[in-house]
């Protein structure tokens, strides 16, 4: 009785605190800021004396590695043989691809496309491969393809068995899950540094980094696919006395195949995405072309290589995507109807019909090699076929720079936009974090936001994480990167959410938007930078524009999906009460779509961070630049410090946005 009375009397006060907690928090921050301003201690620069000095031991370790590379057992018996095997396989594949007469490659890819997905896939894949040659990049493309083939093979050989194991054993799943989360949260850039240390510069570390990056989807989707096989189907197999092996190979794996193949598709696309970045550590091929083009501002060269990458992406995506369409659980007998070509097909003997593809392939091999040996060289892609797009692109860029940069000197154009963003948004925000506000206040503010999103545990973890960035002597760089991420995320969401809403409200708009989003998603992130630099010059802005583009598709799609999956009956109910379309959107659809939209925000944040880091290459500064320096020069320690700071930032941002997303989910349930 007394307890309930006591509780009653305190309720108004706690409610008051609740209502004004944000103002209170702001007041505390301001107070702290005022105090720190007038104390003799300099609270505006992170104390240099607190530096953990991580880079010295790391550099020492690096020198030890260099000194002992040829003698220590770890290298002699483990890293070197492994490195040799991988190097030899890549070389083998590369030599094979370059040895094949190019028409044979193009035509067999076409044939494969037809077998997997019909004429559309066949033509798209065949043309994409041909286009790489037409761009004058046949050899570089085959080098890149060789690395992708080997990395994807390794990733699948590791990933699929691990995925199966995780699906059958909950403990393995529970152990792998956080590991995979961390792997996927980390921007790819970060892997490169330690890999470099153990495998030296060349294609091998590039392959290893690619494998690490591309592994998670293979494991995850195999696991998911097997676990999603209807329980009763598995039970039925068991009930008839199937052994666990029989259940796995005859029921679970066949039914999980579409999902496993989606994993293969994602693995391939991720491998392609990073193989370009891996050019930084000597992967060669197309990535190197892009990189050199970017560094020397030869936009034409970078663009041609970027285009070749896009073609490779299209080819690999369509071929591997066709695999996911083969869903055995949707099988139908072929009793109904006959195709247009069935009458023609029936004229051939059964043997020919059954082995049509193999016979065609054999025919192709014989013909192309006959032509190659007796008529003309088919191994090197003919120079005369090269369509030189570099020069017109360079001209075009010059034209754009002259004409779009500042249209008619009106102060409108990409140049002034870039300047505006830099001077009025980016720089003030960075200054806010690094100069105007003392660092303890920054940490407290971030901890406060994290607490609001995900409770005090996350708040404390965030505070420790942000402090740690300072201790790594990466305070200024981290705040620089953070300011860019904030601006890019804000821009991306401002653009993506309305697009998503429009797309959900109009089928025509969705249909028009789909190919654009597909295209953006197929392009490896690195390549965005090329056209963006043309328009926005080097600096922080192109990185931000590229990030916004890169993060757009998932944010738009998740908003669209969220709104479209709102229960029809709920919307009907709102209509029945006489709501206007606008009211339905804002009072019903958007609130219910919020969990999905928040997932889009989470993905946006993570993708933007990854891209902002990559943009360090083109003058984005911040942690990305530090990582690049660590990679390109011999300052491994500095690179590792930046890498750790990036990982911390990625983790904090991921947890914070996920916690926020979860809050909305709770709202939805009520």
């Amino acid at each position, binding site marked *: 009785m007394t307890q309930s009375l006591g509780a009653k009397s305190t309720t108004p006060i706690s409610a008051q605190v609740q209502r004004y907690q944000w103002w209170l928090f702001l007041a505390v921050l301001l107070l702290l800021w005022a105090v720190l301003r007038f104390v003799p201690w300099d609270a505006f620069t992170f104390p240099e004396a607190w530096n953990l000095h991580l880079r010295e031991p790391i550099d020492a370790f690096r020198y030890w590695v260099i000194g002992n590379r040829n003698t220590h057992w770890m290298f002699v018996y483990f890293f070197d043989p492994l490195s040799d095997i991988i190097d030899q396989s890549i070389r083998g594949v590369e030599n094979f691809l370059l040895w094949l007469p190019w028409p044979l490659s193009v035509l067999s890819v076409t044939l494969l496309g037809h077998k997997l997905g019909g004429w559309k896939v066949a033509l798209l894949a065949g043309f994409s491969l041909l286009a790489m040659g037409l761009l004058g990049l046949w050899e570089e493309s085959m080098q890149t393809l060789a690395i992708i083939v080997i990395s994807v093979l390794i990733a699948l050989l590791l990933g699929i068995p691990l995925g199966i194991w995780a699906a059958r054993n*909950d403990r393995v*799943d529970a152990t792998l899950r956080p590991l995979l989360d961390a792997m996927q949260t980390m921007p790819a850039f970060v892997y490169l540094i330690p890999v470099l240390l153990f495998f030296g510069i060349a294609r091998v570390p590039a392959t290893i980094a690619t494998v690490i990056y591309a592994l998670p989807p293979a494991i995850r989707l195999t696991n998911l696919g097997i*676990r*999603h*096989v*209807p*329980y*009763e*189907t*598995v*039970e*039925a*197999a*068991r*009930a*008839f*006395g*199937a*052994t666990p092996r*029989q259940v796995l190979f005859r*029921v679970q794996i*066949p*039914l999980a195949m579409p999902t496993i193949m989606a994993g293969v598709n994602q693995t391939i696309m991720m491998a392609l995405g990073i193989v370009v970045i891996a050019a930084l550590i000597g992967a060669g091929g197309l990535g190197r072309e892009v990189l050199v083009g970017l560094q020397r501002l030869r936009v034409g060269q970078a663009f041609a290589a970027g285009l070749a990458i896009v073609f490779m992406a299209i080819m690999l995506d369509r071929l591997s995507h066709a695999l996911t369409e083969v869903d*055995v*659980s*949707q*099988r*139908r*007998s072929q*009793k109904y109807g006959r195709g247009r070509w069935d009458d023609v097909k029936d004229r051939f003997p059964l043997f020919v019909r059954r082995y049509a593809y193999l016979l065609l392939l054999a025919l192709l091999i014989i013909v192309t090699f006959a032509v190659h040996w007796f008529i003309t060289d088919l191994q090197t892609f003919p120079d005369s076929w090269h369509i030189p797009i570099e020069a017109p692109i360079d001209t075009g860029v010059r034209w754009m720079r002259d004409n779009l940069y500042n249209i008619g000197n009106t102060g409108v154009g990409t140049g002034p936009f870039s300047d505006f963003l830099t001077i009025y948004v980016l720089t003030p925000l960075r200054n806010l974090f690094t100069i105007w506000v003392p660092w303890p206040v920054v940490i407290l503010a971030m901890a406060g936001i994290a607490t609001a999103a995900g409770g005090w545990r996350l708040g404390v973890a965030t505070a420790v994480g942000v402090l740690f960035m300072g201790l790594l002597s990466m305070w200024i760089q981290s705040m620089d990167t953070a300011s860019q991420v904030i601006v890019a995320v804000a821009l991306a969401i401002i653009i993506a959410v309305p697009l998503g809403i429009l797309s959900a409200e109009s089928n025509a708009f969705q249909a028009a938007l789909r190919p654009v989003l597909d295209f953006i998603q197929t392009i490896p992130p690195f390549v965005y930078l090329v056209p963006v630099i043309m328009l926005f010059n080097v600096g922080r802005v192109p990185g931000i524009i590229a990030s916004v583009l890169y993060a757009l598709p998932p944010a738009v799609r998740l908003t669209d999906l969220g709104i479209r999956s709102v229960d029809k009956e709920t919307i009907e109910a709102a209509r029945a009460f006489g709501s206007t379309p606008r009211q339905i959107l804002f009072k019903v659809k958007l609130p219910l779509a919020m969990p999905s939209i928040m997932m889009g925000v989470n993905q946006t944040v993570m993708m933007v961070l990854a891209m902002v880091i990559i943009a360090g290459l083109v003058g984005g500064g911040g942690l990305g630049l530090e990582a690049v320096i660590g990679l390109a020069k011999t300052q491994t320690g500095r690179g590792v410090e930046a890498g750790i700071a990036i990982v911390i930032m990625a983790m904090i941002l991921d947890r914070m946005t996920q916690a926020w997303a979860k809050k909305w989910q709770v709202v939805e349930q009520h």
Partner: protein
Amino acid sequence: MDSLEPGWTKADVLEQTGHVVAVKDVSFEVKEGETFVVMGLSGSGKSTLVRCLTRLTDPTAGQVLMDGEDVLAMNDAELRALRRRKMSMVFQHFGLFPHRKVIDNVAYGLEVQKIDKKQRYERANEVLEIVGLSGWGDYYPGELSGGMQQRVGLARALAVDPEILFFDEPFSALDPLIRREMQDELIRLQEHMQKTIVFITHDFLEAIKLADYLAIMKDGEVVQMGTSQNIILHPADDYVQEFTEDVPHSRVVTAGAIMRPPQPDDEPEQFPAVHPETTLHDLVPIAAEYDARLSVRNEGGDLIGIVDRRTLMLALAGQKVNGS
């Protein structure tokens, strides 16, 4: 939500996480050739019960004896042998393999026994004919209607010629009309198969229609066990009583249950003779036609009781009469 255990039934999750006891203190005996029905609403533990019998779920305590052999003590190989030869199961959502043709679904149990293809197809075609699906073997399950899919499920279970058949709510995913058709089909099949059947259902009418012996479950425990007629006429508590209220008595109560002992002045030879297991529903037309009492005689033709019209009418109205 990133669900950890997709596809598990609620009972499975509860059982796996160990938080809720799904079934306790349930003990019964099924005789050879008998149809034993377990009836209960969702969450009553009936699905877990049948999974304990087949060890698709391992019970934490108890005993399951099949022909005197302890199923729970069996190792994996013995258990598989048991599943391959002695028992088979029909599932609620059919549990068919969508990636295999109908014939390969039906032949599955034979395939895992490593019986050669010709032989198992022969048997599968035989069984398909029994369930009325001859000619459908080359189709995939996705091309068939729900009722046909469950016929495939039934054929798959029959193909291995098991001694015991387990049915886990096999007809509850079907439309009412198809459901009734399947029930009649099962009764027809069972008439000459004479298999031992354990049948799970949440439908009381289905239960009394099929059962030789019936157990009603609630919250993991059996509240009443007995023949359909016995349960309807003597519900153990209000819970059971509520189910029985919807039951048309005329289709369950038999002449044997309402008859009175014959008396010297009955002149039973004048009366039409009926079997003690004839239901009231079937007595009515006879009684109407002959305008007299009915004599109840057993298989041997011995007079064992008399049903007069008043008793019949009262019984039809659901009132208790005589010894019933």
